[in-house]
């Protein structure tokens, strides 16, 4: 099965410079990491050497190193160092599978397969990511009500524009990356929005309307 397109995989602030994290899009395991200059990268989460998850490893400057045997890769995905063979000039054939990676609207996006044009979204302030044990469809149908967009039940909207990145993790798992667009928002409002995201997660999982 081929997966094509751009998918939001994290809020920008959750991947600090010099760190990495594992994310999953429709079952595809991806390591998202940020080099110390601040640029984000999205790669297949698998070291070509022994298949270890690169997201278990660590970032050193503009390289990411595998936890298992310390093989280091540069920002282009090319292996640059094999600690067990320090004198070896590493063959060009040892490289990572890399994906497209852009940041827009306070989120990191990974471009998979025939991804097409990279997204451009308005500037926004991070609220929180939530990880829901439910299919994307169930999460999407609960989303408007959770943030007061339907006017039918629940509380009124707290701000004019909530932008939510939807990450389909797998058939029964969906991540939401919630942001507030349209300028400055008070911390107390961000906290209320974060609580609504938490309530959304819990109500979708339990099947009990919030």
């Amino acid at each position, binding site marked *: 099965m081929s997966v094509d397109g751009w998918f939001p995989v*994290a*809020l920008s602030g*959750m991947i*600090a410079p010099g*760190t990495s*994290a*594992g*994310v*999953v899009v429709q079952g595809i395991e991806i390591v998202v990491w940020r080099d110390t200059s601040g640029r984000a990268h999205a790669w297949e989460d698998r070291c070509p050497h022994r298949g270890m998850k690169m*997201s*278990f490893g*660590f970032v050193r400057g503009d390289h990411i190193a595998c*936890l298992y045997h310390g093989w280091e890769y540069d920002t282009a995905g090319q292996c640059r160092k094999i600690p067990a063979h320090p004198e070896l000039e590493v063959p060009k054939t040892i490289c990572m599978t890399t994906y497209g990676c852009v940041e827009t609207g306070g989120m990191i996006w990974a471009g998979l397969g025939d991804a097409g044009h990279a997204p451009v979204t308005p500037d926004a302030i991070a*609220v*929180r*990511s939530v*990880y829901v044990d439910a299919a994307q469809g169930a999460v999407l149908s609960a989303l408007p009500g959770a943030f007061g967009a339907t006017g039918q039940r629940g509380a009124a909207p707290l701000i004019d524009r909530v932008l939510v990145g939807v990450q389909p993790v797998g058939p029964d798992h969906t*991540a939401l990356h919630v942001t507030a667009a349209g300028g400055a928002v008070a*911390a107390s409002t*961000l*906290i209320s929005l*974060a*609580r609504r995201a*938490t309530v959304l997660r819990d109500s979708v999982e339990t099947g009990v309307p919030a």
Partner: protein
Amino acid sequence: MTVPRLYNYDLDEDCYRVRLIAGCLGVPLTLHGIDMFPGREHLTPEMLALNPQGRLPVLQDGDLVLVQPAAIVLHLAETGARDHALLPADAVTRARMMDWIAFAVRDLGVAAQARLCSMLGAPGDLRALQAAARRALRIMDDHLTLRGIAGEGYVAGPAPTLADLFLFPAFALSRDYGIDHDEFPALRLWARRVRTIPGFRVMPGIPDYH
């Protein structure tokens, strides 16, 4: 003043808790190695006389014998590092610290059971233990998300306390019992901060990035 003796097994999560916190407090310990696996030395008559529960750690400080990790670390702080910032003097912050230490023991305690079940074949329903541990980690992630929006980076406030160190091992070791860090972005950032507390140390299963 005599140096307290810790009956210690390097791979035991609670023994690591005590070593970690003693190290950050700057309190010296005499380590007395006990071979739990495969030696089962924690079940010898001499050790059962110290702790009838047949568990580690055991702390012996003169005539005082303590077997509960929370009591051990508080004793070390109050006798060896009374004015240390990790033991806040402010009553509200101290109460929050105690609340989270109790959470670590009561609610997150399943994580240690899950780890023993997964790694050493200890009895238990691994899936149920994993699910309970995941619920507890979610509660921590939800809490630290809200604290983060309010500009505070630790469970009891803007500065680290014993509670952060007490909670840390269960998250850092979660891959040992089959729970990845993907779904806990606030915990990932928090764990990175905990690693910067002076005196921090690791145990097998928790990589040292430096």
